[in-house]
């Protein structure tokens, strides 16, 4: 028989699936800000925040929502090299694949984009932009200058990456949107909404306020870490449910299990 915790566990599988998107007050505000920025005549928009703050899912959602209204493209994985990047870009601009044994002439590409100005307005969402080389970033900057392509650049926020952002985009980025870790209240809401979305009311109810505080303390409000911790918690619960049901309290997730999960994930150490 399938444990009640098996479903709960899978709710927290890390994904950027739009169906898993949880609307929180802060994410709604960020989304609206991003949507408004795209409407503005900006060349580049920088979306940054620590890993796991929901940048990818936000871009994904934006893409899904606007793709019917705008010419918007989502580059979820960074190109391994310049050639691959321009191959993808050519496909977007020319609406066709690059013929075999051909290469992109960057000057010609700039000229092509300039010719498209006023005719087409293309939005490219670049996820994990910190993985692009400085050369590619420089060419992205030149392409944005044509005002045909608007780039939304998503970056991890670290000290080094802040530096990259400053060096390469300072003069061109007109809008900066920062995503922050969730507060305890937001994270509680996130966990509850995720579980309720799958009708796991009893399980949602078994995580008490104190437990939420502890979870927030361990994950520091990071959504990705929260997903990982919740997955592990329910996985351990599932084990006890199947093998040692006497050790589990269905009305309340034991603190012991939360701490065991934190130990497993390295948030705390022996």
């Amino acid at each position: 028989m399938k444990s009640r915790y098996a479903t709960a566990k899978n709710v927290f599988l890390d994904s950027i699936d739009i169906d898993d998107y949880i609307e929180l007050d802060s994410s709604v505000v960020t989304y609206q800000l991003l949507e408004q920025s795209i409407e503005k005549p900006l060349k580049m928009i920088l979306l940054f925040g620590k890993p796991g703050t929901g940048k990818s899912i936000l871009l994904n959602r934006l893409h899904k929502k606007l793709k019917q209204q705008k010419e918007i493209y989502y580059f979820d994985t960074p190109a391994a090299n310049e050639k691959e990047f321009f191959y993808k870009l050519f496909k977007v601009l020319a609406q066709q694949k690059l013929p075999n044994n051909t290469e992109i002439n960057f000057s010609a590409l700039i000229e092509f984009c300039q010719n498209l100005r006023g005719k087409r307005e293309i939005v490219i969402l670049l996820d994990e932009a910190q993985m692009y080389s400085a050369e590619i970033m420089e060419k992205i900057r030149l392409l944005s200058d044509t005002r045909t392509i608007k780039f939304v650049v998503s970056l991890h926020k670290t000290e080094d990456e802040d530096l990259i952002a400053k060096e390469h985009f300072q003069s061109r980025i007109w809008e900066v949107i920062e995503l922050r870790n969730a507060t305890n209240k937001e994270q509680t809401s996130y966990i509850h909404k995720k579980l309720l979305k799958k009708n796991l009311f009893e399980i949602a109810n078994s995580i008490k306020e104190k437990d939420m505080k502890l979870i927030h303390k361990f994950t520091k409000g990071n959504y990705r870490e929260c997903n990982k911790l919740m997955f592990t918690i329910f996985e351990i619960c599932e084990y006890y449910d199947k093998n040692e049901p006497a050790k589990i309290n269905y009305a309340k997730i034991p603190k012991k299990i939360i701490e065991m999960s934190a130990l497993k994930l390295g948030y705390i150490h022996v």
Partner: protein
Amino acid sequence: MYDIKILEDNWEKYKIKKRKPWYIFIFFILVVIGIIFILLKSDFTFFSDDQNFFTKINDFTISKTKLNNNSKDYALINGPLNRLELIEDTSKNIKKVDVSNDLLVDIPILDIPDESISTQVDALKRKKPHLNIIESTNVKAYKDVEKRFYESHDIDDGLFLARSYYKKENYKKSEYWSLQVNKLDTNVEESLFIFVKSKIKLGHKNEALGILISYIKKSNSKEAKNLLLHINNNKF
């Protein structure tokens, strides 16, 4: 799935590690409390000793009946101690006053079998101030004791007076007071001895010997025999 047993073991270790600062804190607090307690106790003992001293003196002075059963010398202590209470605070002044040997002779040494009493008397002996009080209030002190004797007919008061006058070589009075005690209790051997000695000093040796011999016959007292020996050897 992970190895839950290992995870549980790690959790137990984590729990101990987490509580460690509390254990250390509690241990530290206990050590601090222990030190404070020891310090307080030592201070308290010091203070308490003094307090006991005064308490015992008060008890001694006030509860006369307690002493009646145990001590022949109640009257002796009673007077001086009453004064000791009063002048304790002025001990500095008292120390400045010279104590003459004569005066020391004037005050009979207590020989109280009871340990607690003897401790207090020792303490009193160490504290010379009470001697000065006797000096300054000497006559009045005897008058007070005499007055008290007539009121209470206390044997200890009478004995004190007999003993004191004898030492002061006022044999008339020592004879009188020893007789008063003997009237109250014929078993108080000391009163008889003082009476006999006073008689001898007053020149009534035969009469004194007659009384002593008849007492020896009656009681076979070793002390009385010794006294007789002393008299016969002309040690008076």
